[in-house]
Every structure is written in C-alpha cells, then in structure tokens.
C-alpha cells in the first residue's frame, strides 16, 4: 500500500511541475530551484508534514522533499541550539544527500563521457 501512495503522491508532484513547464517559459532548472524553496516554506509552515506522513518516499523524493528536510533540520537545530542551530541544522539534515551528490556526481562525470546525440 505504501508503494501505491508513494506512486500517487510522487507522480502528482511531478504533474504539477510538468504543467508549469508546459504552460510557462520556465526551465527544469527554474523548477528545481523554486520547488526546493517551496519545500522549505511548506516544511516550515508544517503543511508538508502530512504529505510526507501519507506519501512517504513519494513526498520525500521530489526536490520539494529536500527543501522540507532542510527546513525541518534548521527548525530542529534552532530548537536545540538556538541561533547557531538555525545555521547548521538544515545542512546537517541535508548533509548525506549533498555529500552523495558531490562524490557520485564528480565520479560519474569523470568516468563517463557525454553520449553523442542522435
């Protein structure tokens, strides 16, 4: 059942992005940046939390979920350590993903070459 929920929530978020892509001149880059920021806002306001509880990975895997994790971490850090925690909490929550993106991204880019377009 959690697979079906993940499919529906994740697919639904992607549909919203697709409609924006098709109806506006925004590029996928714009979408990534605005969705991560939107994820922070929705996460901070507590609006995203129910979606995560319902959709699981379907809500966490889209880049909105990365923003949600950053906001949740920063607020948790602020609660625990005050102002300093607000600065470090978000990065702590995102650390695994960011570190993975750096090391895997770099490695794959060095190993592989772009495929010639056909």
């Amino acid at each position: 059942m959690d697979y079906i929920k993940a499919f529906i929530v994740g697919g639904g978020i992607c549909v919203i992005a697709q409609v924006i892509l098709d109806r506006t001149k925004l590029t996928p880059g714009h979408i990534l940046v605005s969705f991560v920021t939107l994820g922070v806002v929705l996460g901070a306001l507590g609006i995203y939390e129910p979606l995560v509880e319902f959709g699981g990975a379907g809500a966490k895997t889209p880049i909105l979920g990365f923003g949600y994790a950053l906001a949740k971490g920063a607020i948790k850090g602020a609660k625990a350590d005050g102002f300093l925690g607000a600065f470090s909490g978000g990065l702590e929550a995102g650390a695994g993903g960011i570190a993975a993106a750096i090391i895997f991204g770099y490695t794959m880019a060095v190993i592989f070459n772009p495929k010639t377009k056909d």
Partner: protein
Amino acid sequence: MENLNNNEYQKFADKKVPKPTYLKNVILAFLVGGAICTIAQGVTNFLESQGYNEDLCGMGTSIVMIFIGSLLTGLGVYDKIGKVGGAGAAVPITGFANSIVAPAMEFKREGFIFGVAAKMFIIAGPVLVYGIGSSIIAGLLSILFKG
C-alpha cells in the same frame, strides 16, 4: 498554393504546427515520477527492515537515489528517461543528480577544476543557495515566533 492569402496561409501554417501534447506530457510525468518515487519507497522499506531510524532511512534513500541518478546519467540512460518523463524525471532527487552530472561531463574538456568541479553546480548551486538560505531563515523565524 500561390493563391493563398495571408489569412488562409495562417490557417494552413497553424495546421502544420505540432499540436501541444499537454495531456500526454502530464500522464508520462505522472508515470515516470511515480515510478521513481516507488523505487525510492522500496529503498526506504529495505533500510527500515535493516533497523535504521527514520532520519537515517531518509538520508540513506537520498544517497541511493542520487547514486542511481548519477550512474544512469553517466550511462546516457537518464537523458532518455528525461525525454519521455519530462518533469517526472527532473523533479525527483535523481533529476537533481542528473543536473549535476550532465553539465560536468559536458565541460570536462575545460579541466577538472573549472570544467567538471565548477559546472557540477551550475543548477545544483542555485538549488543549494536558495534551499539552504531559506532553511536558515526558517530556523531563525522559528526562534522569533516560538521564543
């Protein structure tokens, strides 16, 4: 053909312009995005079964999905998924990995510092700036409003 006036020509040209495929795009985005999230749910469930706590499961899932996205981009497979899935491939965290590897590979000839390492962040950089920046603001605001 020579007898077409402006108005008729416009109608003729409009017919030749490919019809926008909004509905098809939306359906494909739903299927591809949904499928990627379902795979991520599988990874999460596996990590949970290994006894990791919720936070570690989330982080572990991100790491695995980023690995998959990077590898498939390197192999040239993710481009094909992206062509079919559109936003369904771009918005999940695998698309974030794709946005790192694709330009980094493309600019390799400019060297490993200003080519690969710098171009990795051409999209990921703004994502981190706005994501982390706004998370700090959210954290500070949470102090102001909760005391």
